[in-house]
């Protein structure tokens, strides 16, 4: 089942000077973006997509995987030392990480976080190695109707990412679909919503949309936040080995395995990301612990649960990306965009047409994980220093880089203007409390959804019944319905609880 030749080829593609250099750059930048609150690994990926243009597909993948692993691992540094999670994926790490740092055990907390992040990634990569080919093999039987069902399932998962208001999340997802409609329509290549603008014939540039909505909105928001003076108190740390004993490590293995399984499972599901898995695994670790009362006071168990799970999720999300061509979260949505721009179409066919490239992803992740472990321990001083870098210089620099990135897509200054437009749009929708993650997923999955729906209906002579004539498709429709039902139930319960407690959201209650 496991293709050893392709695996060897994958490692050969990245285990050379250039490959290792770009993986190291990726991990370093990812850790940097991950550890600085307000930035994230996804922003780093969006920012670096243009750089991959000048690189070969293999080296481009190596850089992106480095950014992915670094981005998800960096969040623990600020979570432990500042009590501010660098990314939402490390939110749960603050619960026990910072109390440990306050007790003078910052080195132990960091060491635990880094080692178990490494293990979480490692376990998810093993899952990737064994599950992805099976899933891809199964997906080889998929036709247009099955792919439409998969895309629909991924789109309904946006409901679970919608925060407290599911309707707003779904509307946001629809806006993503609308943005993706601009340009040439699939199948018959008709111009759509181009308003006679030649620059819009190919649709909005992926980089302009993603970096605009993601990074620019952040730059604007941070300008306002900069008025609030934050005196950052960074807890001192000192490493001694990994920071914990062998006995402590062995004791944590069941917790780590359970958290990794949760992380991988959450990662495979489209739409649910590491920001959810770290909290779920923390809660499960607490519920199954012999000493739940100690959670939150600064114990290793809490850090092990959250950091193993969030890294496992990042690896798990690669499985549907490679096997089905469906992104699991925002980071993988960006990766899908980046790979498509490089002419690589992830999906089951890639496993047969270019297995070397598939395993380059796997090899890059493995190497990036090792680099992350070494770099986190070796260069911790640098990352801690970065926590106090002035946002006033960092944010405008990122903006300038965003412009370079937008331009590099097609050497067209129009894309830079659109970057600004999408920046304002991203800011606007967040001002009105509409989540942006569903929008990104809608934008990325939209074309797949439309193309396969139209193709399926052509194959079925325009009859809708054709869409339901496959058991696989029906299974995905059932999953889609189930995900909407679960989200709906969650929202209704949350609203009822708020009503009982008398808590009124400014939004008003009884929201769907």
């Amino acid at each position, binding site marked *: 089942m496991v293709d050893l030749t392709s695996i060897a080829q994958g490692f050969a593609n990245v285990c050379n000077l250039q490959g290792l250099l770009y993986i190291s750059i990726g991990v370093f930048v990812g850790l940097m973006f991950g550890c600085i609150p307000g930035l994230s690994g996804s922003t780093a990926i969006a920012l670096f997509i243009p*750089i991959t243009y*000048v690189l070969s597909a293999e080296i481009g993948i190596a850089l992106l995987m480095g950014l992915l692993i670094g981005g998800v691992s960096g969040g623990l540094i600020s979570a432990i030392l500042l009590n501010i999670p660098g990314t939402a994926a490390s939110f749960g790490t603050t619960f026990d990480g910072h109390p440990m740092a306050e007790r003078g055990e910052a080195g132990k907390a960091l060491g635990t976080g880094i080692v178990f992040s490494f293990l979480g990634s490692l376990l998810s990569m093993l899952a990737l190695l064994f599950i992805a080919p099976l899933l891809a093999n199964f997906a080889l039987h998929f036709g247009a109707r099955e792919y439409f069902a998969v895309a629909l399932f991924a789109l309904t998962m946006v409901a679970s990412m919608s925060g407290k208001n599911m*309707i707003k999340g*779904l*509307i946001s997802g*629809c806006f993503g*679909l*609308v943005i993706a*409609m601009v340009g040439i*329509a699939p*199948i*018959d290549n*008709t111009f*759509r*919503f181009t308003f006679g603008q030649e620059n819009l014939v190919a649709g909005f540039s992926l980089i302009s949309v993603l970096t605009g909505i993601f990074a*620019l909105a952040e*730059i*604007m*928001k941070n*300008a*306002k936040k*900069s*008025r609030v*003076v934050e005196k950052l108190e960074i807890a001192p740390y000192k490493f001694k080995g990994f920071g914990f004993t062998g006995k402590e490590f062995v004791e944590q293995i069941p917790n780590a395995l359970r958290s990794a399984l949760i992380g991988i499972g959450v990662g495979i599901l489209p739409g649910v990301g590491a920001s959810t898995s770290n909290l779920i695994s923390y809660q499960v670790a607490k519920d199954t612990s012999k000493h739940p009362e100690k959670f939150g006071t600064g114990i290793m168990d809490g850090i092990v649960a959250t950091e193993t799970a969030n890294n496992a999720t990042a690896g798990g999300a690669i499985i549907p990306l490679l096997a089905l061509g469906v992104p699991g979260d925002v980071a993988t949505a960006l990766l899908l965009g980046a790979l498509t721009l490089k002419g690589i179409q992830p999906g089951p066919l890639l496993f047969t047409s270019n297995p070397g490239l598939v395993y380059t992803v796997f090899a890059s992740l493995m190497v990036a994980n090792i680099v992350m472990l070494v770099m986190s321990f070796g260069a911790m001083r640098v990352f801690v220093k970065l926590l106090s870098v*002035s*946002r*006033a*210089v960092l*944010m*405008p*620099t990122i*903006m*300038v*880089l965003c*412009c*370079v990135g937008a*331009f*590099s897509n097609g*050497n067209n*200054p129009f894309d*830079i*203007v659109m*970057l*600004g437009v999408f*920046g*304002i749009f991203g800011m606007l929708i967040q001002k*009105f409390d*509409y989540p942006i993650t569903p929008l990104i997923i809608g934008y990325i999955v939209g074309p797949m959804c*439309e193309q396969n*729906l*139209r193709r399926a*209906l052509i194959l079925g002579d*325009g009859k809708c019944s054709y869409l339901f004539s496959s058991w696989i498709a029906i299974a995905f429709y059932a999953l889609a319905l189930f995900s909407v039902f679960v989200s709906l139930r969650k929202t209704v319960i949350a609203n009822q609880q708020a009503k009982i407690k008398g808590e*009124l959201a*400014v*939004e*008003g*209650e*009884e929201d*769907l």
Partner: protein
Amino acid sequence: MKYNTANYKRIGAAIFIVFFGIMLFISSFFIQRRTSTGLGPDFFPRLIAIVIVLLGGIELVNAVKGYKFLEKNGKLIPIEARKKSLKDLFYDNLDWVSGALIVVYVIGIYYLGFLLPSVIYMFVQILLYTTNKKRNYILYSALSIIIPAVIYYTFRSYFHLMLPVGILG
């Protein structure tokens, strides 16, 4: 009693969404079809337009219900007692000011090329980020020139990316 416009924010957004959905639906009829049979390129936009109108409608109902609930319980946000000075308004809306700066910057690149607008943008944006801090104008000026210049020359010489030179080129 007058209330703060923040109370109507959600209702306004919902009305806009319904309006947008209707506009999308109408505009889908202007998409030229190349074939007369089967589903054309207008099908999906029309479908999404209908979904947007439906979701927008639900959101509007929820927004109105939420408003009425807050009104009934006297929880609406009251209007500011004191008129804000221009300075306060500026500081309160630093995010939008930055947004406006970014719009001017990207348009500036379109016409004037990359380098000059980037230097000006960097300097002004740093000032916007340091409104309540002691400023070091010499350092900010130096950084505003050095950073865009390094980025410009790195991408031009190493990545062979011909960044726009605009009318100054």
